[in-house]
């Protein structure tokens, strides 16, 4: 049966609560072998994930999903009934204002909104038939992150860290990067939460350009003093462990304190970019005039540095321009002034993301790093008011690159107007099933018994999107 509530659950004991065979696999992961090697899971194609979360919802019909019919029907009402929208202020069909072109050798059509990412088209697997289940930000954000629309469930990053264990002892397994004014999306930090999984799987907020970058990371005493204090405390703790017959628990605590101690050095070393060449910094756009772009560039560069250090799941946060509804928590959310808003947002992330793809590739990291670009939903093909678009979870585009994904592919399609996914309809469950598959994990086997149920990142859904896998 399920569990014994020992006062302190070691990682191994936590894993014991995992019901299915994956528990064994995960323990194997701790021991330094790839998780799937022992459990008959799918082959490991990726060791880590970089999640480029486009909070607020990018308009797919303006970026990765060309719809010439929008121009042909511009200004007309939608020819069929549409679902309720959040602002109930639907206008008429609104064509895109960006040119779509065939890109790379594969010829995938991508608009001029993302010219630099488009140059990497041969690396991208674009899913044009993604669907979400919620048309509001908070539920949508929690859903894309955790598989459930309310807080309390583990984030994909937590599941990944839980399932694969950590490769690096000095940094958290799941890091959420922020810079400048970026903040958590609607739904809050629960989007990065560990839910019912062990706390060491939760996303740690790392502010790339702040001092200290991580909460409470800066010691108030010099390293030697702190070392002496930790040694004193360790000795005292061991004495306590002997008295209370708690040697194991105390040793586990001491190890945790040591990890924290090392993190204090590792985190500043991570965020110190002095060893990066000027060329690299320029490549990412750290010198950009647009301060949001420069800030996002810093996140992208740090993402590479975290990938190099073996962090399992790295999530990036867009910054806002406060245009047409797109604010701090939902920067892409252009209910109005879509042209201006999307142009600025795209410029912010286009070059840094392109640089990240190029840099990972050049360093050989792209092979086993899975890059996922996605928002919580897309936007309507008809206008909201005169110049914006409302939320649309019924069909939108995401892309993946690296980590065993087949570059230069397109999966699925929306209808003629880009309103609803109609071919190879994919769900966000499928997205995570696919990500876990590339990490060598069968998503149906990654379970954790909680509240009388075996819980999964993919709930009771999800199919691996094999068509976009190499």
């Amino acid at each position, binding site marked *: 049966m399920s569990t014994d509530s020992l006062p302190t659950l070691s990682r191994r004991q936590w894993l014991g609560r995992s019901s299915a065979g994956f528990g064994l696999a995960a323990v194997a992961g701790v021991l330094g072998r790839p998780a799937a090697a022992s459990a008959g899971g799918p082959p490991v194609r990726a060791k880590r994930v970089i999640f480029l979360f486009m909070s607020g919802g990018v308009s797919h019909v303006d970026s990765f999903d060309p719809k010439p019919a929008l121009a042909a029907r511009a200004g007309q009402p939608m020819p069929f009934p549409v679902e309720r929208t959040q602002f109930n202020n639907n206008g008429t069909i609104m064509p895109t204002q960006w040119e779509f072109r065939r890109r790379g050798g594969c010829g995938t059509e991508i608009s001029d909104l993302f010219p630099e990412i488009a140059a990497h088209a041969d690396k991208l697997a674009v899913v044009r038939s993604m669907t979400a289940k919620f048309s509001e930000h908070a539920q949508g954000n929690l859903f894309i992150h955790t598989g459930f629309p309310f807080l309390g469930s583990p984030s994909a990053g937590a599941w990944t860290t839980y399932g694969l264990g950590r490769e690096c002892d000095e940094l958290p397994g799941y890091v959420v990067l922020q810079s400048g004014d970026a903040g958590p999306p609607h739904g809050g930090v629960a989007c990065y939460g560990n839910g019912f999984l062990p706390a060491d799987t939760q996303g740690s907020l790392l502010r790339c350009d702040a001092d200290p970058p991580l909460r409470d990371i800066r010691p108030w005493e010099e390293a030697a003093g702190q070392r002496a204090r930790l040694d004193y405390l360790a000795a005292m703790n061991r004495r306590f462990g002997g008295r209370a017959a708690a040697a194991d628990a105390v040793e586990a605590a001491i190890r945790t304190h040591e990890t924290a101690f090392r993190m204090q050095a590792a985190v500043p070393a991570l965020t110190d970019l002095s060893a990066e060449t000027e060329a690299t910094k320029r490549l990412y756009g750290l010198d950009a005039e647009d301060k949001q772009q420069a800030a996002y560039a810093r996140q992208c560069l740090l993402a590479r540095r975290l990938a190099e250090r073996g962090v399992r799941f790295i999530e990036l946060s867009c910054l806002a321009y406060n245009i047409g509804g797109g604010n701090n928590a939902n920067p892409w959310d252009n209910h109005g002034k879509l042209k201006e808003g999307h142009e600025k947002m795209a410029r912010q992330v286009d070059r840094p993301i392109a640089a990240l793809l190029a840099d990972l590739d050049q360093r050989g990291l792209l092979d086993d790093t899975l890059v996922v670009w996605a928002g919580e939903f897309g936007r309507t093909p008809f206008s909201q008011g005169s110049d914006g678009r409302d939320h649309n979870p019924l069909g939108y585009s995401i892309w993946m690159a690296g980590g065993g994904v087949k570059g230069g592919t397109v999966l699925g399609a929306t209808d003629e107007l880009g309103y609803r996914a109609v071919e190879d309809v994919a769900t966000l469950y499928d997205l995570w099933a696919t990500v876990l598959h590339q990490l060598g994990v069968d998503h149906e086997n990654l379970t954790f018994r909680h509240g*009388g149920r075996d819980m999964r990142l993919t709930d009771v859904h999800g199919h691996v999107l094999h068509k976009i896998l190499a």
Partner: protein
Amino acid sequence: MLFVAALAALAGLARPATMQAAAGEELFEKVIRPYLVERCYECHGTHGTRENDLALDWAGGMRTGGASGPAVVPGKPAESVIMQALEHENDLLMPKGGPKPPAEIVRAFRTWIELGAADPRTRPPSAEELAQETSWEEIFARRKNWWSLQPLEKPAVPPPAAGWLAASGHPVDRFIAAKLAAAGVEPAAEADPDTLLRRATLVLTGLPPTPEERAAFLADTAADRWERVVDRLIASPHFAEHWARHWLDCVRYCETHGSEGDPTIPHAWRYRDWCIRAIRDDVPVDRFIREQLAGDLLPDPRIDRDTGTNESALGIGHLRMVPHGFTPTDPLDEMVTFTDNQIDVISKAFLGMTVSCARCHNHKFDAISQADFYALFGTLASCRPAVIQADAPGRRDRHRAELATLKQSIRGLLAEAWLATLAAGPPAALVEKLIAAAAPLPEPAADAGSDGKAVQDAVKPDAVKPDPQRIAREKEAAAKEKARRQRMREVDHPFAAALRLEGLSGDARSRAWDELRSGAAAVPAAQAAPGGVPELAAWMQYGERLAASPPGEFRVEPEGERVVTRLLPAGIHSNLLAASDGSVLHSPNFPVASDEIRLLVAGAGRSRMRIVVWNYPRPLGLLYPNQTLANSEPEWITLKTAVWKGERAHLELATGGDLAVEAVDDAGSWFSVLAVDSGSGPPPAVHRPAASLFDLLSADDPVLGGPAPDPAALAVAYVRAARRAVEAWRDGTATDPQVRLLDGFAAAGALPCDLGSLPSVRETVERFRALAREIPPPVRAPGVIEGPVVDQPLFVRGNHKQPAAAVPRRFLEALDPRPFPPAASGRLELAAAIVAGSNPLTPRVFVNRVWHHLFGRGIVASVDTFGQMGDPPTHPELLDHLAVRFVSPAADGVPTQRPWSLKDLVRFLVTSRTFRLAARPTESATRLDPGNTLFSHARLRRLEGETIRDSLLAASGRLDRQPFGPSVPGGAARRSVYVAVRRNAIDPFLAAFDPPSTQSTQGRRDVSHVPAQSLVLMNGDFVRGLATERATRLVGEWRELPCDERIRRLFVEALAREPGTEEVAATRAWLDALAARRGVPAADVPGHVPLWADLVHATYNLEEFIHVD
């Protein structure tokens, strides 16, 4: 458990072959077949998905097997794949997603195979046969045999035996000792006094013992010192705070709804305080539970005399602590989500059952059907989210009779004064005033009604930049004013005659008069046509007792010179006696059928009207139309409802403090509603029925039949009409047109309404106001109010777009299948069923929760899950003994204990020897029971984040012990139970230490060691600040004390024990080295605050500080 007897009877003795076969058949029928049907047929059946090509529903299928080989090889368990699957030996973990089969089941299968796997199922079943065998009725009947659903029976207490524990007279010790003896495990010794005092103090109050409490305990040599310490701790107010926090975990206590905006649940903290007071007062737990389901409906509420609060009503607050989405486009889905959350919490917290698992299908493992889920759903969906009023009965009723009488007097006195005014004043001047009042504004504003530009220009000078909202407001106001003046000129307005005739003479005047006269008869009595929207007469109300008033009601202004502002037309009006009253007027449910719904309303003070779709309580945006009322004159206000056609909705009007979400306490909040209408086209006239001067005069009035009166004659006629109106108003017989006439006179200043002009009224008004002020504002709290009773249709496969037949509201069928009565939601009946003597779950679950908190692990370790997915009880007899004693102590021979008393239960358990065992296990315990499931020794436990924080505050002397009230930020020095629990912004310190879920019941905290905890304790400002404060005080207070003595005292403060000599030496050595590194001369050490802060801080960083053993 049922299977055990069968197994025992059949246990593998050597038998002749025929007997073997017979035994195999019996075993098959008693154990194997039921298990196969229950657990295996669904996936491995002839007619279903046949996972792995395996059919287990007939003998041939079993023997042929599937892709992994033969499931059963008769006589050869080792070659039977089914054994590997049941034993979870390899990756075939069956049943999939379910619990590992109990050992006795696995044994039964092995025995059965060894006996030859007798199997009468010689052919595959037909679909009909299968359906019958796997019917819910069959499965349900079997599942009802689950141990936790069996009636409570009082097991015999094992006899005493040798040894400190086993010889104890305490029943708990006997049960524990008996199991230990049977397992050959030696219990630990008794813990030392320091450990015991710290354990008891932390476990009972969540705070460490103070040095004074420790000294007193150690100095006490009386035989009953332990019992007296326990009594002291249970009586401490901090006991209630700590144990309330445990309960808050069970109901996912939080103060916001989460999601975008994370809106506050108004007054959520009152539920937390209710919980603390209930535990402080040792409210019997059955009552405690009843109040959480139906405290607002109980006929005998508990009253807090000090605060005038209906305590019982506060208990339902947790029903509001559901998550709510932000502007969901599918509100029925949202409703299912939040009702599901209520059911999840209720069933887990009180019953240890996961009823929520049966939303889409019958429960996979327990005796809970999908119908059970929707039976509970109906009860909860028959209620509406609300701010409730939890006043002690009568609290807000005082003075009301006298206020009503005084108001009648005011009416009489006003009438008298007005009649005098009408008799004395020059009529012409009156009419001039009326005309002036009707047309006071300059024209430009009127133009803005059609063209916003004029307004935009007009507001530019005093606006830095154009504010679109402001421009819109101005535009709207201008349009309203234009419309108002237009209406006044219309024929059905009492002042139309005066306005139309003004400035006219001769023929023109005659023509206008004739038009008016003929028009008077032609005006139809415009009526609102509800058209699918429930008529006002059918609406329900909550709070202040509202009633439809005849024309002429009024509100006495609560302060100032003005006595009355408006005379009110016929309608439903809030706040007619007291400005502090709060009310909700809400319609029955109806399917939205029209593009628009209009209400003829007035209101002020953030009162709001809105349409509520599927009970979604947040009034948001364009999708959920709502309007804050800020018009003192009734107007038609339209809600655009086209988007909700076909959805279930209701309409609501509420005063500001009584909005379920976004409540605004505004003592001046009120509303009036006259009509509701869903018709299209132009709205009916605001004033009903239409009337004019011609209707206001007596039929034989000379002016009626004559030529157009000159201004003086017209004025006199108006005065005659007004006099008639005042008299009718005084006598309570005024019509709406008469009231409008008077209201117009009053608004124009033609009838005095200010105290200065009404000396005869002053005394009565002041008396009225004084009394009205003594009516306190309602005690507002989160809760639900009874709405229309709804039997919920079952949703096929949980799909809310596929409703099936309605399920009558009732409790779980396995415990009490009787339907609830039709007249109310059924919360009272649900509460009664949960605590009924026939329900064994509630006492078992509750005493197990208490045991868990006292001993660190439940007798059922999975404290929230008493179903098949949970853990079995390690000591079922002890659990039942405790449960029986808990609910009926007298029957148990302990009349001194009160039924359902938490405090008596805690006292009983803590005074056992088992509680006093040391944490160091014996050799046999380490060897035979490493998990300590037999409770041979005390468990080392990490403290909850709240207790760590409180311990830091207490040890540093900073703890602010003030109880109760609105929540505080984490930086405050109050106990953690008072720190705000905002879903999207959990206090960072508490967040580091495995805080409870705010999403669902969590009766057992997780415990993890993560670097974030080390960092917050080592580097965080909160801990560092407390250490520095303590150090600052101690270098002064302990100036004379040597360093070693200070170290000793700091250990006592932090750990409630003396340090050993070596510990003092090690600490001293570290301190000295630190001083040397910092360059602090030895002589300066005693007064060096940073150095001592380091030392204090170090004691807070010890593992011992955050653990209890």
